[in-house]
């Protein structure tokens, strides 16, 4: 067998042979295609930390769903969705009515939510349940889970397509939109809702602790490749899909846990991009060095 053939075999065989690997790949691809563009807007709106905090805040809702309905993916997702929205809303309210800024309110609330969630699962479930909720179980994703991720992805992409222009304007020049009689709150709320939907979709694959992995890392990596927004959104999605594929294959071949393998792969792409991509560290330094000194 040729070198190319064995290389293809090494990377592709796991997906050809095993249905659970194909399901995991399909779910991660759907997740990447919607989460990464959302992540791009989060980074551009300087809300990266908020995404991280909301992801952790999803846990108590997931736990409540688990307590009342057992390991039903639908109940856990619904609980997570409600909890995520509640914490995002509460952080906004707290920022308005207390001396804390919004990021501090988020940090406080997500810690409370995370601790509460861990407590709930520990009391009502096993260590394995807790591990699955914190770190995900992408290889165990079933048909129902796949459909849920696909639905979340579809909804996100449709809303992004409809609200794209408004979201861009609201990010770059919020006063312009307000002067045209559109309260910024509507688009902001809609956007936060999309963030939560994607984090809930991501939790069963990557767990509540790493669900932001496929949201922020591809987005951050893509920033080093282009400064054109539509290209940036597409690049982030593509990087997410690539990270999912490479991560899953590596986790299968080297017997790594798959969630961390995917996130670490995305992380490696991010580090490499921010060093060597056209708008990364090295190229920027070279360009600066070439500029005539004034």
């Amino acid at each position, binding site marked *: 067998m040729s070198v190319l053939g064995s290389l293809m075999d090494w990377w592709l065989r796991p997906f050809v042979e095993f249905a659970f690997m194909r399901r995991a790949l399909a779910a991660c691809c759907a997740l990447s295609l919607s989460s990464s563009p959302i992540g791009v807007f989060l980074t551009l709106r300087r809300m990266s930390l908020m995404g991280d905090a909301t992801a952790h805040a999803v846990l108590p809702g997931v736990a409540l769903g688990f307590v009342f309905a057992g390991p039903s993916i639908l109940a856990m997702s619904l609980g997570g969705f409600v909890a995520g929205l509640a914490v995002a809303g509460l952080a906004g309210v707290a920022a308005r009515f207390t001396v804390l800024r919004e990021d501090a309110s988020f940090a406080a609330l997500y810690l409370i939510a995370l601790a509460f969630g861990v407590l709930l699962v520990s009391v009502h479930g096993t260590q394995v349940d807790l591990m699955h909720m914190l770190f995900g179980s992408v290889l165990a994703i079933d048909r129902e889970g796949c459909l849920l991720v696909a639905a979340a992805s579809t909804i996100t992409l449709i809303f992004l397509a409809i609200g794209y222009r408004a979201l861009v304007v609201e990010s770059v*020049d919020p006063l312009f939109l307000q002067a045209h009689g559109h309260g910024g709150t509507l688009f902001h709320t809609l956007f936060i809702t999309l963030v939560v939907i994607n984090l809930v979709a991501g939790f069963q694959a990557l767990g509540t602790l790493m669900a932001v992995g496929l949201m922020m890392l591809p987005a951050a990596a893509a920033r080093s490749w282009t*400064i054109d927004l539509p290209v940036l959104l597409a690049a982030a999605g593509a990087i997410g899909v690539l990270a999912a594929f490479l991560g899953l294959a590596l986790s299968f071949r080297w017997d790594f846990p798959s969630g961390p393998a995917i996130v670490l792969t995305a992380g490696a792409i991010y580090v490499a991009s921010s060093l060597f991509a056209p708008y990364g560290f090295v190229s920027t330094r070279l360009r600066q060095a070439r500029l005539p000194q004034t």
Partner: protein
Amino acid sequence: MGPLVVAEHPSEPAVSFEAVTVRYGKGTAVRHVDARIALGTLTAVIGPNGAGKSTLLNVVSGIKRTAAGRVVLNSCIGHRIAYLPQQSALDRSFPIQVLDLVLLGAWERTHSLRRVSSIDRQRAQDALGAVGLTGLEARPIGSLSAGQLQRALFARLLMQDAQLLLLDEPFNAMDSRTTQDLLEVLKSWHREGRTVVAVLHDMEQVRAHFTHALLLARQCVACGLIRTVLTAENLALARDMAAEWAEGTA
């Protein structure tokens, strides 16, 4: 109360402030402002720092609501208002091209979903030409100088084809060349019969180029023709009022 009421009489002023009070939290930004801005004038809003000049523009543009009183707009202006806030409101690091920024001026027609027509594109190109930015269409806004960005924002104002233009310190930190060019744009709006209201600091500029002024010190000190407003007594009065509230907060 709600920000805007449209008057029925075309002979009325462009904007009437009727006992307008605006609050931010517990503080009062402007109190009981009664003033009229005549149609088709070049009106400068002047006054010491913290006098509530930007607040007044925010109320007219509908961004800020009045706590008491009302703002009445002439029906021939209706909702055709364009507002240029201070540049700090804009996120310059956002990856958007100059042409796209200018095309936002067509928002009233396109909103979020409608296609940008080739006519709009041509108008955006023309607007960029009018402010001297031809050739920079594809540049990201982050790569523009402060002066170039202000020119691009003026191009967006040109696109908006508004009857009432509200400009908040449009020449702040601009070089003299940019200021001259943009003043010409202001004057062309004036010649076309549009009403221009600009917050300004440079009294020489106001005297040289504007027809009317509104002198503000959290209340309306004077309003009307330049020579009746910019008198030594009025300016001294505004300074005294500013000194009073500065002491009050110290």
